[in-house]
């Protein structure tokens, strides 16, 4: 591996001119990932990026690894085939809120359910960028778009809530421009054996500019972000004096301030990333009433699909003879016809 250790961002940058709009959040994500790759210690030739169609899905063209820019919504299915065919490969899926949650919802669902070992990154800009700005399944109610000139009426999907509902064993969230946080989350995702799902809030300055400002704004960050750490209390606010409390009988959550009307430190929920109920609760928290959780919401590993498949196969091979076609052809009942 030493060879790879010495790799740098440049080694993971392809010769293709990057073609996103100026100011697109995708640039920041690309840079972060190109920086991260050398530290993962996976040789370039063993790394594969697979995407569907969308601005976000152009990602593979810019990575000096193996890559496949496939068709709209199908990246998880194609990536599953790649991983099943060669579990040695380190397979990443890059998708968007339209690609992954609209047309591709079913494949994402089943890739997560099967828990096949892929890193699935969903760039969520709450809009269809490539096709010039139609609303997406994650767009907020009232989104004005060419296909909803009077505002959208349907309720948005919460990607992390969906992922947990699908049976995902690793679910996390980060922000396009927060390189440090995004890097740590991606390292965790990569380390996780099994399907890992990462939602990345991504700004589309052209068709949906500023929708994440409330949480990206450094000034209000302390109030608007709930930074998750396993085993740490769910506190936030300027001097971490605020926290999330749960009423055990009705399971209602509220924001409390430590020290105020009898609230003590140990009334605050403690993050347990292996706890599914807590993860589901966190995935649904949103502003303005609550801060938005960032980091690893859920991590509860179990045997990845492809491991199970090959393990079973090796088991079976012990009983079934050698892969001999002539023997196969002569298996079962046969008879001879003499001259």
């Amino acid at each position, binding site marked *: 591996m030493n060879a790879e250790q010495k790799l740098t961002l440049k080694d993971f940058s392809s010769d293709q001119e990057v073609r996103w709009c100026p100011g697109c959040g995708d640039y920041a994500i690309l840079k972060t990932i190109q920086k991260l790759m050398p530290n993962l210690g996976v040789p370039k030739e063993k790394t594969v990026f697979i995407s569907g169609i969308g601005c976000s899905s152009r990602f593979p063209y810019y990575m000096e690894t193996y890559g496949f820019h496939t*068709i709209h919504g199908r990246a998880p299915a194609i990536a599953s085939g790649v991983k099943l065919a060669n579990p040695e490969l380190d397979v990443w899926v890059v998708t968007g809120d339209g690609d992954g949650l609209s047309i591709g919802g079913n494949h994402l669902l089943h890739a997560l359910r099967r828990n096949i070992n892929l890193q699935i990154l969903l760039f969520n800009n709450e809009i269809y960028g490539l096709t010039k700005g139609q609303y997406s399944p994650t767009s907020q109610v009232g989104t004005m778009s060419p296909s909803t000139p009077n505002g959208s009426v349907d309720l948005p999907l919460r990607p992390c809530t969906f992922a947990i509902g699908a049976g995902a064993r690793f679910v996390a969230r980060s922000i396009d421009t927060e390189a440090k946080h995004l890097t740590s989350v991606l390292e965790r995702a990569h380390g996780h054996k099994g399907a890992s799902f990462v939602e990345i809030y991504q700004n589309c300055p052209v068709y949906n500019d500023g929708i994440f400002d409330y949480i990206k704004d450094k000034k209000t960050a302390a109030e608007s972000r709930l930074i998750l750490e396993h085993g740490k209390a769910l506190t936030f606010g300027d001097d971490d004096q605020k926290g999330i409390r749960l009423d055990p009988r009705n399971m209602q959550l509220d924001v409390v301030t430590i020290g105020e009307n009898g609230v003590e430190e140990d009334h605050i929920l403690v993050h347990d990333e292996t706890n599914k109920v807590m993860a589901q609760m966190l995935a649904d928290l949103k502003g303005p009433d609550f801060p938005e959780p960032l980091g690893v919401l859920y991590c509860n590993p179990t045997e990845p699909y492809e491991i199970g498949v090959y393990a079973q196969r090796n088991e079976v091979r012990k009983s079934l003879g050698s892969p001999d076609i002539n023997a196969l052809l002569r298996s079962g009942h046969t008879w001879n016809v003499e001259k």
Partner: protein
Amino acid sequence: MSVVDKLVSQELEGNTVRDVVVRFAGDSGDGMQLTGSNFTEATAIYGNDLATFPDFPAEIRAPAGATFGVSAFQIYFGSEDVTTAGDEVDVLVAMNPAALITNLSDLVYGGLIIVDDGSFTDKNLVRAGYSSNPLDDGSLDPYRLISIEIGKQVLEAVKPFGLSHKFALRCKNMWTLGLVMWLFDRSRDSTIDGLRSKFSKKPEIAEANVAALNAGHSYGETAELPSGVEVYKVPKAHVQPGLYRNTTGTEALAFGLLAGGQLAELPLMFASYPITPASNLLHALSSQKQFDVVTFQAEDEIAAACAAIGGSFAGSLGVTSSSGPGISLKGEAISLACATELPLVIVNTQRGGPSTGLPTKTEQSDLNQALFGRHADTSLPIIAAASCVDCFDVAIEAVRLATKFTTPVILLSDGYIANASEPWRVPDFDEYESFPVQFETDAENFTPAKRDPETLARVWAKPGTPGLEHRIGGIEKSFETGDISYDPENHQKMTDVRKAKIDQIANYIPDQQVSLGREVGALAVVGWGSTFGAIHQAVKRCRADGLEVSHIHARYMWPYPKNFEQLLNGFEQVLVPEMNVGQFVEVIRSRFLIDAKRLNKVSGQPFKIREIEKAIKSLLESST
């Protein structure tokens, strides 16, 4: 023509007939398919040539006695080559009234009926739609009837094994088989062996079945049967010596794919989603894990096609399988495989359409879909299987074409050959020529656009190979670099080369042969797929009647063998029988400007020999 009349007409000595059609019919619960396949095996061992036609009910488990729950198995066997399951039935075994009423129309005048009259209860008669009992209302007078209380006979025979009443009656089919085996002088050994190995864990069940089988046989020997009903001899056919087995089309196809993988020295990535009648291929391969194949039941057909494409990208051979409705869903993914020029095998086991159509019935109506069922210009090789046995070679050929020319290949089978079974002279795999795939390893001025100058195949560089990191995708790519290109000239060039690559495959496939008859003449009957047998027999009969007709069977539905046009031009007329409203015939007309005539049948049933015979004769008459 009845069995008995055949004695006369076929002018053979003794109770000898040249060929016979027997159909076993009963409730889906009565085990008719099992009965049929046992009789088939015995017949093959006896040395007759044969062909079979299983006809499953659409329902999974219909209530006992319902007409829509009738399951039938037909076998045609004889002393000359037999390639269809036969037109009329000579001997009909009907285990209940529903089986009788739904099958009687196919029985020849004077034909033999064997019924279990214990099952002709009022309840069952009503269920079947009889107002009076056909066994005694005279409606069966035109036939020879053997009516036996099989239930009673069976209970008698299996008493020693102390089975429950329910289980004891399950042996009825074996008793009936025994009787029919007596009728045609078949040996019970293979059936007995089969029963004993199948029920090795439950010897009493095995022995009870054996006892029932023997009892049915001795019933034939001892009982008083209607006049003219005695043991019939069907002379052995002149079958090639060698080792034989029975195979369904699905089995042979599964074996062929595994064999193809070995010849290409590639692992298989088989991804599918269940659908009748294609599911069995998924099942067959799922239980062959000793071979280098991963089977994947995807969430839908789109995912299956995509997983197979992913497999090919990763360096396996992706194979996906479905039937018409599922193939419709794969169109966009197949177009991606065409654009990225990745090897892929798509198996379509055709069924009755449109839409959900007739899932358990057979049809050939997906040829147009194979040719054109995608957006844009995406031509690809298409090959079709002619019979159960042919599935093996066709599967190997599909793998060869897909890997040699880095292209998706569509393999067309259908419900008939997938489920029917026929004896197979087991080939020696060592005699097959291998076609190992050469993956790219040379990083020296590598581009993903690189082509084999001769075959025009795109380079196959699999992830994991150092120095060959590259990106592919569905957007048009530069002919030189493989990078995205919106350049007009380049798009023209890429379109041309994609087309040229497929067209020139004609240089790598064998010339079109004539299956039967001369290379020129008054009429060529041109068929494809599972109509082979019926056409073959029809042409044979017409030639026997002195007609100047030949049978040409196409395996390559796209592109065509180089000599195909010139061959067809050697005939005054061309007739194309198809189980669709006319698809292959249109391609022949447009390609060769030949005024090919059509013969179409879309009833979910295979052609009958006489339907084609009739068409041939009327065509030749009209033209004289």
